[in-house]
């Protein structure tokens, strides 16, 4: 899954065979992962899947039960946090309430033999960097949530750590501030070039910020890849289902590249299963293409528009396809397409399910997820 440029680099952070148990409960099983220098990596997964646990193991805040973590070529597996090299930002910000913003940011710069003037210059620089140059004398409680989060970020990067860890840094903010801060954090990360690992359960956040995403479930890694890979080429049904919307249709493999749903045989390029295997066929709503009248295509299926909902930039329709049996398909049509093909509620039309977009996953995998 790694692209060519990253394959030639040496990884900055390397996690090998990492396990974590809490009593009898296994929170992480056999995690191996590499993070490249300067990369922005996201851990994405449902609540309780172990994202925070993995992040805290990397930080040394809660040591893993077994397995190694190395950073910049150094084995840090059993070191306490103070002997590692990272900055961290938490969902709660964890700003020291009784210290001014300046002193919060300067906290990690003190006791390191730096002259006072240098510390104060660095604080000013950081305040400007996060866009809050005038707020240094205030206390955390006097700032908004978004401002507090930026201060927490400034405090975390003050000492120029080699690794920046973010645990759901934006999830305590309201939606608008969150979207805005996404860009700022990403921008800042690019500017500093600091290797960053962020935990989130918000897929939009992960897709828009990450260079690569690690999708996790039940304490294991389901898939690692760029946002586009994760979205377009999900390797498991869980990933397919968790990221974006996905139609899931029970099907049986006819031969390589062909699956049967009900009475109808569909082309599915990537399917490599044996004849007769029960699979779940998966297609994204936006990949279902409406066919204009008169355009002839042997693979097109007749469909009826059962419901139709305008969602701003597109329409989401629910289609019934008699050929596929008693199921309904979710399909997203652009405004253009709706105008061009003239789609409306109750109307019959023909849709195409592109062979390169139709995926098949083993059926029992679906039962498990």
């Amino acid at each position, binding site marked *: 899954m790694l692209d060519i440029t990253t394959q030639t680099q040496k990884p900055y952070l390397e996690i090998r065979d990492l396990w974590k148990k809490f009593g009898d409960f296994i929170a992480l099983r056999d995690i191996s992962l590499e993070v490249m220098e300067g990369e922005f990596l996201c851990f994405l997964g449902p609540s309780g899947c172990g994202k925070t646990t993995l992040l805290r193991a990397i930080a040394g805040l809660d*040591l*893993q039960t077994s397995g190694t973590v190395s950073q910049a070529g150094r084995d840090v597996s059993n070191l306490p946090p*103070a002997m590692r090299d990272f900055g*961290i930002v938490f969902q709660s910000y964890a700003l020291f309430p*009784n210290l001014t913003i300046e002193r919060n940011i300067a906290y990690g710069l*003190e006791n390191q033999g730096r002259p006072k003037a240098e510390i104060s210059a660095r604080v000013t620089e950081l305040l400007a960097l996060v866009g809050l140059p005038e707020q240094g004398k205030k206390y955390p409680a006097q700032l908004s949530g978004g401002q507090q989060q930026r201060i927490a970020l400034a405090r975390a990067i003050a000492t120029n750590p080699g690794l920046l860890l973010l645990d759901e840094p934006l999830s305590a903010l309201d939606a608008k501030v969150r979207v805005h801060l996404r860009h700022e954090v990403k921008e800042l990360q690019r500017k500093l070039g600091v290797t960053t690992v962020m935990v989130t359960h918000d897929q939009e956040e992960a897709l828009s910020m990450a260079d690569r995403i690690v999708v996790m479930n039940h304490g294991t890694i389901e898939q690692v890849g760029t946002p586009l890979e994760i979205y377009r080429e999900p390797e498991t049904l869980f990933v397919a289902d968790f990221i974006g919307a996905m139609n899931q249709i029970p099907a049986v493999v006819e031969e390589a590249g062909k699956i049967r749903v009900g009475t109808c045989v569909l082309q599915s390029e990537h399917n490599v299963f044996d004849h007769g295997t029960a699979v779940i066929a998966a297609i994204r709503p936006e990949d279902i293409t409406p066919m204009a009248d008169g355009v002839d295509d042997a693979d097109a299926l007749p469909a009826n528009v059962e419901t139709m909902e305008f969602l701003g930039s597109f329409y989401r329709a629910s289609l019934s396809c008699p050929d596929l049996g008693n199921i309904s398909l979710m399909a997203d049509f652009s405004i253009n397409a709706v105008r061009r093909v003239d789609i409306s509620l109750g109307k019959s039309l023909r849709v195409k399910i592109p062979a390169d977009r139709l995926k098949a996953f083993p059926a029992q995998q679906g039962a498990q997820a």
Partner: protein
Amino acid sequence: MSTIDDIPRPFVKPRLGKDDWIQRGFMAVIALYLIVALALPLYAMLSKAFSTYTFDLSQYEVQVSDEDGHFTKPVENIANLNARFDPPVIGAGSTNSNGRQKLTGLFPDFSFRSPVMYRFRGTSPEAVYLVGSERHTGPEWLELDSNTFRRVVIRPVKHVGLANFTTYFSTPALTQSVRNSLWIATISTIITVTLAFWFAYALARSCMRFKGVFRMVAMLPILVPSLLPGIALVYLFGNQGMLKSFLMGETIYGPIGIVLGSVFFTFPHAMIIISTALAISDARLYEAAVSLKASRWKTFWTVTIPGARYGLFSAAFVVFNLVITDFGLPKVIGGKFNVLAVDIYKQVIGQQNFEMGAVVSVVLLVPAMLAFAIDRQMQKKQVALLSARSVVFEPKPNRKMDRIFFAYTVLVSIFIAGIIGVCQFAALIKFWPYDLSLSLHNYNFDLMDGGGWGSYKNSIVLAVLTAVIGTVVVFLGAYMVEKTKGFEKGRALFQMLAMLPMAIPGMVLGLAYIFFFNNPANPLNFIYGTMIILVVSTVTHFYTVSHLTAVTALKQMDTEFESVSASLKQPFHKLFRQVTVPVSMPAILNISIYLFVNAMTTVSAVVFLYSTDTALASIAVLNMDDAGDIAPAAAMGMMIFYTNAGARILHALASRGILKRSEAWRKGD
């Protein structure tokens, strides 16, 4: 699915940083403190309670010479010798650990001037005997002249078992105290909780005026020793009491006095707990009840009481515990009515029977522990109620009800303020009831037995030391339990030790200290009889409430402060100094004033431990009252009151100052 057995070895062993070592060191020191100041003394006491001592005569042999000093007669076993007498010279009864038995009674012809010689030995290495104060054991024969043989005493052997308890429960005079204690505690609990409930209810749910004043009056009893109401009751209802006729021939020296005084000194404790319970009940429930047009009475039973039930139970068990373990009040006003706490005192101080004192302590521990355990359960459920979000209740004016509540709170306040007023009056009157002129004569403590002004100074020293040392120890301990990582078992043990003191009555702790620290073999023996042991016992006695206050304050702090600080490579003590302590300052002040006030008023925790150099004001009240100097006792009680009131005012000012200075950064809370 893999199981935890599939996790490949080796497991990661954390490498401890400097902070980890320092933190562990601190925790070990404080845990050691609790072990030495609590666990070991209690163990010493328990082992005393289960030990009995008897003389094992068969362990010794004697041979008596003729007048010329020739040992021609056979060797005799002491047990056989004793059995030849009817009745035996040495009884079979039990003794205590200090028991000594002379042997000359076994020789009717004995005279210390006689030339007869004695050979004496123990038949086993465990057989211990003294010649004078010189200790001997074992089977070596010792040849002694008559004059020396006179000074031979044998020492008892120890058995472990329930014999002491058998003796206790077959002594009606002692078991009567169990019934008395339970009876008194139950009655006092019912009365106090009822009174306190309506008082708290009036404060929380009515629109009457002067609530602030009432709240303050209700808290007054905390500032005085529990035996002070006893003195006031003597002035009011005693043999020459102002209101003696109110009792219609009954005597105040006994259950009536104890119950009245107990209601006085336990009232604020019940009031605080019930007030908290009422404050967190949900306003929305009331609105729902009102909108359903439920009657006041129905709302009360379906909303108020269920909402406050855990608070009520909790208050009941706390009051019960306070009453059953209190010593000062029944000592002053109990008369011939014996209760457990006073029995411990009588056994130890009066009869020097330490084993029996330990037995009564164990008996007293049972209800105290039970009440404590149930209270903890109640508190937990109360907290669960709290977490459901509630809306603050705003009472609406109701003229008739407000007036009734006002009248009620005035009555209760008169009772409380009246008791203290009577003490003040007693302290200022020259000679009740014959010379009612005012004078400060009673404050001339140096003229009385009991320690004089020195005892007052000692009390101040004790209170200040307890407040300072106690706050440091408690806060550091709570910090280590709450905010450090790893070392889970150690922390769990520490938490358990920290909860224990609340279940241990002061008398029991004091007695346990005698057993543990007054043992010459104990390297800490040197603190016995000094101010140090008083400070240690007081800090330990009041540890739990302080610990819980500190833990609550620390829990409210973001759990990630430590993580952030460590990631920034700063030592934990920097965070502790710059953030943890300043943010917890209100709680820290609360802990120190709590410790100060309690150190000033406590009697039970220190009554066995003070020496002539370290007499305390609260003990002086007890002793002067005992000696019949009741007016000076009242005056000394009032000195404690002034001091505590002053300390509380200082505390309020300091708290306000701190809140003001931190206003800017606390704004968001």
